[in-house]
C-alpha cells in the first residue's frame, strides 16, 4: 500500500504523490538523489530482515493483481487461468470496442489480388478444420485514421510509422505463447495515454523499466525468502517481484503513437482448439505438461493425391497437420529439421519427425515460364533470369502461413515494394531462449549477425533467457524468422517461453510479466533495428577495457595473462581471426648507441586468442562484465617490453574494436617485462670469476712483475732465435 509507513525515512521524504509539480520533477530529483537513496536501502535490508513485499509495495502489486477491469472471466484477466480461443477473441473484441482510438480487431484478411497475383478470398485464411480465421489486433495511435488497407482490412496505416508483427501460437500446444501476447495487449490497453503511474505503489514513478535488472534495488530490500518470487532459482531476476515493475507509461503511449503493431496472439486456432478440446483437454498441464498437439489440422490423407482415402474426415493424429513453423517458403524443404513428403500428399503415419512435417510440395509453374520449381526461395536468383525466388518448391500452403505471408506482403504503407515490418517476433515455448536467424544452416552467419546478436542478447538479459542463433539450438528450415529475415530483411526473433508447453495456471502471470519487456523492445527498435544495434554496440564497447599495464600481473614464470573486460551484450566472436590480443615483444638492441635513447628491436605483431573466464570484472560504467584472458607466451629470460592491444571483433567482423581506444590516447599499451629466470649458479659463477680474474688480473700482475724484474730473459722466445738476436743487437746488455 502506498500510504503504508516505510521503514526508510529517506525515501519517504521523496514520495509526495499529491503534488503535480513534484511528480514532474521527481525523475530529476531521483536521478540526482539515487546514490544517496541507495545507501540507506542497503542498511535497511540488513537491519530489517523481515521485509516482505507488502512492506514495500502496494498490496495489489505485491500479490500480482493487475489493474485492468474485471470484465468477463476475472481469472483469465488476472492471468490465473488460460484463455481459450473464444474468450481470447472476445476479450480482444471487448478491448477494441473499449479503446477504439488505438485498438482495432481483425480476423483473417479480406482478400483480393495478393502480392504474387493470386486471387485470395477471406475463406482461404480460415483453418482447415474448425474454419476460424486468426484473430489479430491492429494497435496504433488513431487507429481509425490513416489509410485503409482493403486487402488486409485494417485502418490506421501510416507511411511514416514503422510496423511490427508479433505472432503467438504457431504451435497449438504452446499455450503461454498466446498468453504473453494477451498480457502485452492488456498492458497496452490499460496504460495507453497514461503517464506517471506508480505501478508498484512504492511512491516512486517509472523507476524500474524493462531491462532485467532491479534498477531501484527494491527487490534486494526483501527478505531473501521473497527475492525469488517466480521460483526460477535466480533471486531478483526477471519475473521476480520488484524487477522491472515500474515501467514508463509515457513510453508505451509513445510507442503506440509512433508504431503500427500487428498483434496476432493465436495464429493456429485450429490446432489450439484441437489441443484443448480433443488431444489434451482443458487441464492440459496435468496430462500434457510437456506434450500436446503441435501442428495445424491439414488433412494430409484427404487433400491431393492420396493412396489412403480419409473416410471418416476425422483428424488422423498420426498423419494430419503441418508444422506451421516449417511451412514458410524460405529454404523450404531443405532437409534440416523438417520432414518433407517423399511423394506429394503422401504421409507416413506415426513416422519419425512427423511433428515437423513442412507441408506438401508445390508442383505448379508459379511464374508461368514453362519450368517448374526452378527458382527456390533462398534470396538468390537460382536460374539467373533476373527474377528472384519466383518459382518455389513449396511452403506457405496453409491458411495460417498464407495469412502471415499476405499480411506481410500486402502491408506496404510506403508503397516501396518491401515489407514494412522492420522487426518481427514470434512466441513459442519452451526452453527459455531467445533465437535469431539463421535456422536453416549450421555454422553459418547472417550478414546482420552482430546486430541480431546484440538485440538478442539485450532481450536475453531482459528475460534471463539464453540468447543464441536458432540453428545452434537445432536446425530448422522454413520457419517464420528465416522467412521474415531472409525474404523481407526483417529483424526477427523467436522467444521460447518457459519450461513446458502447458504451464501450470499459477505460473501464467509471472511468466507473462517476465516476458513483457520483449515485445516493447521489438516495437521500439522497429524504426531502424540495424542502426539501434550499431549505436548499442558502440555504447557497450565504450565501457569495455583492456587491462592496463600496471594491472597486469606478470607471473614469476610462464605465460603472461592479459585481461579484457567484456560487456556481456557485446556480440563477441571467440574466433581468433576476429578477436585477439595483438602483442609484440620489444627488447633493447644489444648494440646500443652510447648517447642516444634506448634503441629497440622492431618486431612484427603476433596474435593470441582470448578465452572467456568465469571471473567477473567491472566495466567502466560500473556494471558487471566478463573477463577474457589472453596468454602471451614469453620465455622467462626475456627482458624488455611487451606492447599489446586488443582487437575485439564480431562474427562477421563488422565491429573490429581496438583497445586501448583512441580516446585512451595510444595505439597500444606497454608492459615492462623483467628478467624472470634464475640469475645463475653461485658455485659455477665463482669458478668463472676465478678464471676471468686469473686471466685478467693475474695476467696484469704477471706482466707488471715481468716488466720491472731484473730478469733478462725474454718471455716466450724460442731457443733457436737467440743467436740471431744476439747478432742483430750485439751491443745490448747491461
Amino acid at each position, binding site marked *: 500500500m502506498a500510504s503504508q509507513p516505510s521503514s526508510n525515512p529517506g525515501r519517504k521524504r521523496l514520495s509526495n504523490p499529491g503534488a503535480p509539480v513534484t511528480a514532474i520533477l521527481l525523475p530529476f530529483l531521483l536521478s540526482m538523489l539515487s546514490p544517496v537513496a541507495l545507501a540507506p536501502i542497503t542498511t535497511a535490508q540488513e537491519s530489517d530482515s523481515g521485509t516482505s513485499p507488502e512492506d514495500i509495495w502496494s498490496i495489489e502489486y505485491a500479490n500480482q493483481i493487475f489493474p485492468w477491469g474485471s470484465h468477463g472471466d476475472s481469472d483469465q484477466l488476472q492471468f490465473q487461468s488460460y484463455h481459450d480461443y473464444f474468450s481470447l477473441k472476445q476479450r480482444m473484441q471487448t478491448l477494441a470496442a473499449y479503446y477504439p482510438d488505438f485498438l482495432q480487431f481483425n480476423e483473417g484478411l479480406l482478400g483480393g489480388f495478393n502480392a504474387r497475383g493470386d486471387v485470395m478470398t477471406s475463406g482461404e485464411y480460415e483453418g482447415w478444420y474448425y474454419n476460424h480465421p486468426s484473430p489479430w489486433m491492429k494497435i496504433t495511435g488513431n487507429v481509425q485514421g490513416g489509410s485503409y488497407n482493403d486487402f488486409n482490412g485494417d485502418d490506421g496505416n501510416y507511411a511514416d510509422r514503422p510496423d511490427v508483427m508479433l505472432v503467438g501460437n504457431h504451435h497449438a500446444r504452446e499455450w503461454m505463447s498466446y498468453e504473453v501476447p494477451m498480457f502485452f495487449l492488456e498492458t497496452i490497453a490499460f496504460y495507453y495515454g497514461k503517464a506517471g503511474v506508480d505501478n508498484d505503489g512504492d511512491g516512486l514513478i517509472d523507476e524500474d523499466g524493462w531491462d532485467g535488472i532491479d534498477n531501484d534495488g527494491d527487490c534486494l530490500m526483501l527478505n531473501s525468502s521473497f527475492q525469488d518470487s517466480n521460483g526460477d532459482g535466480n533471486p531478483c531476476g526477471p519475473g521476480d517481484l520488484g524487477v522491472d515493475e515500474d515501467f514508463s507509461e509515457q513510453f508505451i503511449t509513445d510507442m503506440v503513437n509512433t508504431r503500427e503493431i500487428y498483434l496476432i496472439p493465436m495464429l493456429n486456432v485450429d490446432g489450439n482448439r484441437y489441443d484443448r478440446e480433443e488431444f489434451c483437454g482443458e487441464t492440459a498441464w496435468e496430462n500434457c505438461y510437456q506434450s500436446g498437439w503441435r501442428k495445424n489440422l491439414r488433412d494430409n490423407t484427404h487433400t491431393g493425391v492420396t493412396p489412403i482415402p480419409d473416410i471418416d474426415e476425422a483428424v488422423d493424429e498420426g498423419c494430419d497437420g503441418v508444422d506451421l513453423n516449417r511451412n514458410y517458403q524460405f529454404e523450404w524443404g531443405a532437409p534440416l529439421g523438417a520432414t518433407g513428403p517423399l511423394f506429394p500428399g503422401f504421409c507416413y503415419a506415426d513416422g519419425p519427425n512427423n511433428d515437423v512435417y513442412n507441408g506438401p510440395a508445390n508442383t505448379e509453374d508459379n511464374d508461368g515460364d514453362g519450368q517448374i520449381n526452378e527458382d527456390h526461395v533462398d534470396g538468390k536468383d537460382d536460374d539467373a533470369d533476373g527474377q528472384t525466388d519466383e518459382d518455389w518448391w513449396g511452403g506457405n500452403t496453409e491458411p495460417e502461413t498464407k495469412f502471415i505471408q499476405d499480411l506481410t506482403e500486402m502491408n506496404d504503407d510506403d508503397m516501396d515494394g518491401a515489407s514494412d515490418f522492420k522487426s518481427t517476433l514470434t512466441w513459442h515455448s519452451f526452453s527459455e531462449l531467445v533465437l535469431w536467424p539463421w535456422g536453416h544452416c549450421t555454422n553459418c552467419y547472417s550478414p546482420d549477425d552482430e546486430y541480431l546478436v546484440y538485440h538478442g542478447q539485450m532481450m536475453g538479459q531482459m528475460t534471463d533467457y539464453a540468447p543464441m542463433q536458432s540453428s545452434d539450438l537445432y536446425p530448422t528450415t522454413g520457419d517464420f524468422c528465416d522467412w521474415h529475415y531472409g525474404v523481407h530483411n526483417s529483424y526477427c526473433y523467436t522467444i521460447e517461453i518457459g519450461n513446458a508447453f502447458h504451464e501450470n495456471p499459477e505460473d501464467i502471470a509471472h511468466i507473462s510479466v517476465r516476458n513483457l519487456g520483449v515485445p516493447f523492445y521489438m516495437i521500439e527498435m522497429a524504426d531502424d533495428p540495424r542502426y539501434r544495434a550499431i549505436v548499442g554496440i558502440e555504447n557497450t564497447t565504450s565501457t569495455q577495457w583492456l587491462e592496463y599495464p600496471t594491472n597486469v600481473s606478470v607471473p614469476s614464470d610462464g605465460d603472461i595473462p592479459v585481461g579484457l573486460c567484456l560487456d556481456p551484450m557485446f556480440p563477441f566472436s571467440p574466433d581468433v581471426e576476429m578477436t585477439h590480443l595483438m602483442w609484440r615483444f620489444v627488447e633493447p638492441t644489444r*648494440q646500443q648507441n652510447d648517447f*642516444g*635513447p634506448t634503441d629497440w628491436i622492431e618486431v612484427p605483431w603476433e596474435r593470441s586468442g582470448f578465452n572467456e573466464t568465469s571471473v567477473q570484472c567491472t566495466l567502466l560504467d560500473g556494471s558487471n562484465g566478463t573477463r577474457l584472458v589472453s596468454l602471451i607466451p614469453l620465455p622467462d629470460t626475456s627482458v624488455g617490453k611487451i606492447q599489446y592491444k586488443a582487437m575485439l571483433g564480431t562474427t562477421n567482423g563488422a565491429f573490429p574494436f581496438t583497445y586501448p581506444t583512441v580516446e585512451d590516447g595510444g595505439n597500444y599499451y606497454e608492459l615492462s617485462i623483467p628478467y624472470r629466470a634464475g640469475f645463475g649458479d653461485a658455485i659455477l659463477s665463482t669458478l668463472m670469476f676465478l678464471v676471468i680474474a686469473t686471466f685478467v688480473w693475474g695476467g696484469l700482475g704477471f706482466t707488471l712483475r715481468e716488466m720491472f724484474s731484473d730478469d733478462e730473459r725474454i718471455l716466450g722466445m724460442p731457443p733457436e732465435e737467440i743467436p740471431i738476436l744476439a747478432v742483430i743487437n750485439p751491443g745490448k746488455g747491461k
Partner: protein
Amino acid sequence: MDSQTEESSDQFSGRLGLIFATIGAAIGTGNIWRFPRMVGANGGGSFLIPWLIFLFLWSIPLIIAEFALGKRSRVGTVGTFRIFAGRRFAWMGLWTAWINCAIGFYYAVVTGWCLNYFQIAIRGGLSQEVDTTEVWNSFLQSPWQVIFFQMITVLITLAAIWGGARAIEKANVTLMVSLFVLLFAALFLSFVMDVKDGSLDGFIYMFSIQPEYLVQPETWINGLSQSAWSCSAGMGMAITYSVYMRKDEDTTLNAATMCLANNSISIIAGLTVMMAVFSVSPDPLGAVSGGSSAITFLVLPEVFAQAPGGPIVQLAMVAIFFLALSFAALTSMISTVELCVRNFVDHGFDRSKSVALTGVAIFLFGIPSAVLWIKIDPSTGVAFPQFLEVQDHIWGYGLMFSGLFMAYTIWKYGWSRYKAWQSDNGVEGFNLRDYLDHGVSAFRDDYINTGDNDWWIGRWWDYIMYLGFPLMFSVLMLSYFADLLANVDDPWNPANPHGISIILLFWGVTASLFVGFNKVLISRPLFRNVPEGAETSIDMLPGGSDPHIFQVGDELPDHVIEELGLA
C-alpha cells in the same frame, strides 16, 4: 719554428709514465658505462668469453703494432703513416687524427656531463628523493650549463697537456691512481649492497655462462666491438704516446699490460654497477640493458642513493662513482687532444700554439653537440642530444679504419721486404713459404722482436695481422651495416641522420679531401722526437728517402727553407 730552442726531445720520465698514459687513454667511459650494459645485454658470463678472447685476438696485437710503429717513427699518426706506409699515404694518419678530433668534439661534452654530475652529487643533488630523469632533462636542456662544463673539460685537458710529456704523465698518474682508488671504494660499497640484499645476484649473473648466448653471433660481435673500442686499439693513441717513449723500452709487454689493465678496470666497474643495480632494482637486467647514458645518469644515481649506511655513504658512493667516471673520461680526453696536438708539433708548429688551437677547436666544434637537437625520447620522456648521437653514429665506426690502415702498413712493409729478398737472392715467382718467412714475418722481426722486449712475439701475431684482423674488421663492419639495414627506416636516405648514406657521405667527403690534401702534407718538414741514443735512424725505416724528415733540434738545411718559403 722555435723547436730548436726547446729541449731536443720530449719524453716520459720512465716506463711507468708511458704505461699510465696509455692506460689512461684506453680506460674511458666505455669501461664504466658501456661494459656493464654489454654484460647485461649479452648474457652475463657468456659475454666475458668472447670479450676476453678478442682481447688477445684484436686489442693486444694491434697495440703491439702501434707501439712498434710509434717507437720507430717517433712522430704522430700523420708522420707515422708517411714514414711507414709511404708518402702517398700520409692522409691515412690525417684520417686517424681527424676521427679522434671529431670524437673529441663531442667527447668533451660527455666528459662535461660527468663533471657536472660529480658536482651535483657532492652538493647532495642526487639523493634518494630526487627524480633523476628530471635532473637529467633539465641539465641537458640548459645549454649554458652544458657548455660551461664542456669548457671546464677542455680547460682541464689543456692544462694537462700544455707542458708536454711530463705534464701528461703527471696528470695521468694522478688521475689513474685516483681512479683505481675510487673504483675500489665504489666496488666495496656495491659489494656491501649486494651482500645485504642477501643474494649477491649481480655477481652471480655477471659470471654465469648462459649457453644459449654463446651460440648467438651477436654475443661474439658485441664481444669483439667492446674489445675493439674499449682498449683504443688501432686508434693511434699508442703511436702518439710512444713518441715520448725512452729509447730502449719494451713495447710488447707494455701492450699486454695496457690492455689487461683496461679489462681489469672493466671488470671492477662492471661488478660495481651490476652488484649495485641488482641489489636494489626490481628489474636489474631491464635497467642495465637499456641505453647507455640512461643507465649511467638515470639508473645509477638512483641505485647508489639507495645504498645502505645512510645519506653520507650514499652521497659518497654517487660522488665517488661520478668522480671516477670523470677521471676516466678526462684521461681519454687528454690522449685524444694530445693525438691532434702531436701532429701539429710534428709539422713544426709551436706546441703552445698547437695546444691552444686544438683546445679552441675542440671547444667550438663541440658546442653544436652540446646544445643542438636536444630531443625527448617519447617512450621514456628522457632527453637526449640527437646531434651528438648523430656525430657518434657517423664517426664511431670511422675509427676502425685507422686499425685497417695500420694493418695495411704492415702488409705493405711485408710485401716490399719480400720483393727485396727476392731481388737480393735472384728468386723469381711467388712462393708462399718464402713469403711467410721473408715477407709476412718481416715487420715482426724488424720492429717488434727488437731485443728490447721482455716478451717474444711469435708467428701467431702474423696470422692475426694478416688473416684474423681483416676477417674481424669485415665482420664488425658488415654486422654494423647489416644492423642499420635491418633496423633503421629508410637507411639509404642521406637526410636520415641514422642511416647509412650519411655515414658513407661523410666518410667519402673526408677521405677525398684528405687524399687531395696529401700533397700539402708531404711537402711539409716532419720533425721526429728522437731520444738521445736511440737507434732509430730514418735510414733504417721505409720512409728513409723522404728528404723532409728531420729530428727535433736539427737545423733545417737552407735549400729546404727556401723550398718551403720559410725564410
